[in-house]
């Protein structure tokens, strides 16, 4: 029966790229799991060297990409859900379509789906990166996901290696529950530290005693070098620590990773502090998997962003930069990157409210768009919730006459092009499905490729 179920799943997998968007990234898994509920465990067991699971609110796709590139360059053949389908059905689809020579899985997993997938997959390694406020209508409060992760970690198989971002106080505390946890974090980010918590920050209170935390430096949202003055809980000792960070706008960043084996200087094409975290997580994981560290360093320097994350597309002699922004922490990280960009900005924000975006769009009011508004020369808003964005910028203090509301993606692109000169850089911050809509239109205009042809 399992054999038949797998065969049907594989057939659907073969057919669905022909059905256009979606690229067959989830449908085969849905069919398989319906036909054979135990299939997930069986598929997981079919990988000789097990799986690495990566979860986070932000950065899981990029970290997965970093790590699978590193492993591939080191000659370890991996199956990965590079298209970002990260619910159980998407992970099952990736496992189902793995090739004969694949020995390991590098899989990104949705935060809410993680506990169930961990139980059935029994990964060799689990990487927990961050938890930010995201889609309250779907995930519920941050606290409820954290609680489920806490229980999941206590029930982890003893052979599972746990890697945790020590800069996230809630996750670090979860990691401390278990002996042998490997911690990574930004050892010294003082040159990019904020002086106060961002508005959208959660978990700025001690996970143990609820007193307000104090920070040596603050990086993104509630992350940083934290300690509680009241109960003396503090960021754990770092096994992998980043220092000497230099961010170079959208071009990338240079930094040094300090580990037991010494200092490793890294130069990455991925912009922003958030990507420093992603590269660090991949470096730590690959080191622990025994990959040669020089190889890791050289692989990280070559990795470029996954579709829509930080993508540069040329259109009508303009540079269109797509920076996915699906929650306040992600959008704020993008704004940090835009602030490093010289000159006036052409900004475009797109917002949809489908299930994958979150039906509740209140979160746009938690993004600190105000910080960048005095650099904005043209502003376009679009997507299904374009007027919510228009109101956001109007009440954020942006000149009403300069807010361009577009009712469709084609019209938006036309307007972006006609209101800017050649060689301009256009920065688009879309929600998840708005990014897919935009890319669809760009594929139609023949300026980029379809997303399921992305990566490997």
């Amino acid at each position: 029966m399992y054999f038949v179920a797998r065969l049907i799943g594989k057939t659907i997998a073969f057919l669905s790229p022909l059905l256009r968007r979606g690229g067959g990234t989830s449908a085969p898994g849905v069919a398989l799991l319906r036909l054979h509920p135990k299939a997930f465990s069986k598929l997981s067991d079919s990988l000789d060297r097990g799986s690495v699971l990566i979860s986070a609110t932000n950065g899981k796709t990029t970290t997965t990409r970093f790590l699978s590139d590193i492993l591939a360059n080191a000659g370890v053949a991996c199956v990965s859900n590079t298209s970002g389908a990260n619910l159980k059905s998407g992970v099952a689809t990736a496992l189902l379509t793995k090739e004969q020579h694949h020995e390991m899985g590098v899989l990104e997993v949705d935060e809410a789906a993680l506990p169930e997938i961990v139980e059935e997959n029994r990964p060799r390694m689990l990487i927990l990166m961050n938890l930010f406020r995201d889609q309250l209508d779907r995930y519920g409060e941050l606290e409820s996901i954290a609680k489920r992760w806490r229980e999941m970690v206590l029930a982890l198989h003893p052979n599972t290696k746990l890697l945790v971002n020590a800069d996230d106080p809630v996750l670090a505390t979860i990691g401390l529950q278990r002996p042998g946890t490997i911690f990574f974090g930004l050892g010294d980010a003082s040159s990019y530290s904020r002086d106060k918590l961002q508005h959208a920050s959660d978990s700025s209170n001690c996970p143990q005693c609820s007193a307000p935390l104090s920070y040596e430096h603050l990086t993104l949202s509630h992350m940083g070098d934290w300690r509680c003055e009241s109960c003396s809980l503090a960021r754990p000792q770092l096994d992998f620590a980043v220092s000497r960070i230099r961010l170079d706008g959208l071009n990338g960043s240079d930094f040094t990773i300090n580990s037991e084996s010494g200092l490793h200087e890294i130069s990455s094409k991925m912009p922003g502090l958030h990507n420093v975290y992603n590269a660090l997580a991949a470096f730590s994981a690959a080191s622990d998997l025994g990959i040669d560290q020089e190889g890791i360093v050289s692989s990280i320097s070559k990795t470029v962003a996954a579709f829509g994350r930080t993508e540069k597309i040329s259109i009508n002699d303009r540079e269109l930069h797509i920076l996915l922004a699906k929650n306040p922490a992600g959008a704020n990280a993008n704004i940090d990157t835009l602030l490093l960009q010289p000159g006036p900005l052409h900004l475009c924000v797109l917002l949809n409210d489908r299930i994958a975006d979150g039906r509740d769009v209140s979160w746009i009011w938690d993004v600190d768009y105000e910080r960048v508004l005095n650099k904005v020369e043209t502003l376009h808003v679009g997507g299904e919730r374009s007027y919510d964005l228009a109101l956001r910028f109007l009440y954020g203090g942006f000149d009403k006459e300069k807010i361009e509301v577009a009712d469709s993606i084609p019209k938006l692109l036309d307007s972006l092009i006609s209101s800017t000169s050649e060689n301009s850089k256009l920065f688009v911050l879309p929600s998840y499905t708005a990014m897919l809509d935009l890319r669809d239109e760009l594929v139609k205009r023949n300026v980029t490729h379809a997303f399921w042809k992305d990566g490997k």
Partner: protein
Amino acid sequence: MTEVRICHLYPDHMNIYGDRGNISVLTKRLQWRGYSSKVTNIGVGDKYVPGDFDLCYLGGGQDKDQNIIALDLAKKSSALASAVDDGVAFLWVCGGIQLAGKRYVDASGNELQGVGILDLETIAGTERLIGDIAIRSSVEDREFTVVGYENHIGQTYLGSDSRPLGKVLHGYGNNSYDQVEGAVQQRVIGTYLHGPLLPKNPDLADLILTWALEHRTSESVSLEKLEDDFAVLAHERAVVRAGLKR
């Protein structure tokens, strides 16, 4: 220049549904009409002095924060009640409507005392009431629709001293049965609607600002109309969206 004094209660704990957007709307709509405003954040342990404010705002928070707040609010409850009696405008949203009521009983049966400025009580239900919502509202002599997003497990029941903010056109409302949403009593408004609430509901924003200005000036106030085309379009689309079954 008349300055409206706004109290933002617990902005550090109760802010998860874009609540600061509501504050921006209040202050900007005053500014556009030539009034000034001053927003004072009042947190845990701070004193609420009834005569200091014309408008009092409280937003929504996570359950654990709501528990912390409830204990602190108990210490402020007589000051808040006297502000209400003095005609101060109150807008308490999401967790706010629950805390404005008499009590909240959570899923495990624990009882949390509310401030009691709205005659209502809330009992945790078994299903979350979640989605886009539109209501038809009638407050004093004004009639308007209010749109927003609701997401609550609490089932709220009104007592005889408070009236609903509106009849539900689409969505759930206070509970799974009554087809009404929110509560109004004196110049206190409680509602589950966020999104945040005020950007897409300029009529409601202006009602609350009228109350606040009347408290400030002790005179009857009539606000001039603003050019609200973005808000009107966003509002119309929200009514349609709430009516779609999805």
